[in-house]
C-alpha cells in the first residue's frame, strides 16, 4: 500500500546527508534501492563503506524486524548474513523517521540468474536455498516474504543472500508480511501460520514462475488459483524435470519437512549423476561396437582380397 509512505517529496535524494539522533553516525545517500511493505531502502555510504539503510515512518513494524535480525545475528553470527550495523532515528522538523543500517548485498536476483539455465542449475540453486531456509528454521523463524526479488545470487561465487526481512516471523505466529503471488493461503493451500512449509511453498512457486514465465504464472493465479493447474504443467517443463517430484510434493503436502526435501533432492542428484554417467557409457559402447564392426569389415575385406 503506497499510502504507508508519506516522506516529504525528494527528501532523501542522492547526495543528501542524514545523521542519527542517538548515535550521531552520518550517511550520504547514494541511490534509492527499493521499498518493502514497511519502509524504503537506500544505498548509503559512511566512512568510505557502503551499506543498505531502511527507513520508515512506522516504528512498530521496523522494530520487530530489527529485533528478529538481532536475534539471528546473535545465534548465527554472519553465517546467514543477518546483521545490523546501526539503529537510529532521523529527525526532520516535527517528524521522526526510524531507520536501521545493514550490510549491502550485491548480486542479481534469482530470476535473472536462472533465466536460460539448465535443469541441473535449477536443482543446485533450489538445494542451497533449502539449506539456507533450514538454518533459519532451526532458530524457530520463518522468512515469510520469500520472492524472486528477495533472493540475491552472486553470479561468481554463487553465494545466496536473502534480503528484506519484513516478513521474518516466529513459528506458530502469523506471517508478518507476504506477497499474494507466493502466499500459501492465497493459493488456498493452507493458512498463514508460520511454519517451514510456508517458506518451502513460496520457494516452489518462485521456481515454477521462473520456469514457466511471469505471464503464464500470473494468469493461472488470477484466473483459477488452482495448484492443480501448476501440478499438471510441472512435468512438462524442461527446466523443472529434475525438481518435479520435490516441487509436486511441496505443492500438495502440508507437512513436508526440510529433512524429507533434502533427502529427495539428494536422491535426485545422485540419480541425475548416474544417468549422465550411463549416457557416457552408452556413447563408449557405441564407439566400441562401431570400431568392432569396422574392424570385422576390414578383416573380411582382407580375406576377400587374399
Amino acid at each position, binding site marked *: 500500500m503506497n499510502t504507508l509512505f508519506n516522506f516529504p517529496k525528494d527528501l532523501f535524494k542522492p547526495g543528501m546527508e542524514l545523521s542519527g539522533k*542517538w548515535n550521531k553516525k552520518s550517511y550520504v545517500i547514494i541511490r534509492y534501492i527499493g521499498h518493502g511493505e514497511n519502509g524504503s531502502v537506500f544505498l548509503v555510504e559512511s566512512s568510505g563503506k557502503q551499506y543498505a539503510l531502511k527507513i520508515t515512518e512506522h516504528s512498530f513494524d521496523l522494530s*520487530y524486524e530489527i529485533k528478529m535480525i538481532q536475534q539471528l545475528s546473535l545465534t548465527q553470527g554472519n553465517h546467514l548474513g543477518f546483521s545490523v550495523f546501526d539503529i537510529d532515528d532521523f529527525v526532520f522538523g516535527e517528524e521522526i523517521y526510524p531507520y536501521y543500517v545493514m550490510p549491502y548485498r550485491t548480486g542479481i536476483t534469482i530470476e535473472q540468474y536462472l533465466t536460460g539455465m539448465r535443469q541441473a542449475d535449477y536443482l543446485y540453486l533450489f538445494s542451497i536455498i533449502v539449506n539456507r531456509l533450514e538454518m533459519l528454521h532451526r532458530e524457530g523463524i520463518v522468512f515469510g516474504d520469500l520472492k524472486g526479488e528477495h533472493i540475491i545470487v552472486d553470479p561468481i561465487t554463487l553465494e545466496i543472500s536473502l534480503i528484506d526481512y519484513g516478513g521474518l516471523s516466529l513459528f506458530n505466529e502469523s506471517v508478518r508480511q507476504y506477497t499474494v503471488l507466493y502466499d500459501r493461503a492465497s493459493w488456498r493451500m493452507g493458512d498463514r*501460520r*508460520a511454519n517451514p512449509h510456508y517458506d518451502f511453498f513460496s520457494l516452489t512457486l518462485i521456481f515454477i514462475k521462473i520456469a514457466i514465465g511471469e505471464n503464464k504464472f500470473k494468469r493461472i493465479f488470477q484466473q483459477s488459483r488452482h495448484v492443480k493447474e501448476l501440478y499438471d504443467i510441472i512435468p512438462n517443463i524442461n527446466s523443472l524435470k529434475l525438481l518435479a517430484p520435490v516441487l509436486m510434493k511441496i505443492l500438495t503436502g502440508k507437512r513436508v519437512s526440510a529433512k524429507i526435501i533434502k533427502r529427495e533432492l539428494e536422491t535426485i542428484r545422485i540419480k541425475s549423476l548416474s544417468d549422465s554417467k550411463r549416457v557416457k557409457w552408452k556413447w563408449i559402447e557405441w564407439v566400441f561396437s562401431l570400431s568392432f564392426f569396422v574392424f570385422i569389415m576390414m578383416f573380411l575385406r582382407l580375406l576377400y582380397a587374399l
Partner: protein
Amino acid sequence: MQKKVSFKQITLITDGQSNMGLSPVLAAKKARDHNIIVNVIGITDEGALGLNGSEEIRGIATAGGGLSQIVSIEHIAKTVQYVTQQSMNKTIQQVINRQLKQILGQGDIYQLPPEERIKVVEVMDHMSEHSHLDILLIVDMSASMRSKLKKIEEALFDFQLSVRSRAGSNQIAIATYPSKENHLEIKIPWTREYFKMDMMISQFIPNGNTPTGPAIEEAIEYFSMINTREKNGILDEYLI
C-alpha cells in the same frame, strides 16, 4: 505484562454515505464506549463515495477509536487484514504510551532510545499476536455494492485465513445491511471454525437505503450475545 489482552472490533466495509437513522459517527462513539473499536474501509470505484463519504468514513473511525482506509476494490483483501492488525497495534500503543507517561513522565515510545524501543515493541507485538479477538465484519449491501460483492467475499475468506493464523484465539462474525426486518442481518454468527463464503451474493436484496448508524447500533447489541461463559473459561482477560 504477560496478561492476556482481548479485543472487540467492528470493521465496516462500505462504498457510500449513510442516509438513514442515527449518525454513524455517534453510533461509533457508542461502540467505543462499549469497548468496541470501529474500523472503516471505504471502496472508491464507481460508488457514491465522494468528499462527504470520505469525511464520514474518517469520522466513524475516529469516533470508534479505530482506523480508516479508502482503497480500490482490488486492494480490499489486504486492507481488511491490515486495518485490523494496525488497529490492534494502535490500541496497544495508546495503552503503553499511557503507562510510559506514568513511569517516565513522557508519553511516547519514540522518546525512547531505539534499543529500548525495540524491547517495548517486542512486548507490544506479543500482546497483539497472542490477544483474543472478536471481530464482526459488516458489509454494506446497497445497490452500488453489487458488482463488488464477489471480490468482497474473496477478501473476507482471505481475512479469516489470516485471523486463524494468529497465535491468539479469535471469533469472527459476518453481517450485512440493510436487511428486510432489522438493519443488520447476521450472515455468519460468531464462530471459531473456518467457514465458506458463498452466502452473500445469492441472498442479495437491492435496497436504496444505507442505514450505517443503526447497523452499528445493532452490532453493539450483537457483541453482548457472545457466549461470555465460554470466553471466561478460556481467557484470563482484561479489556483495553
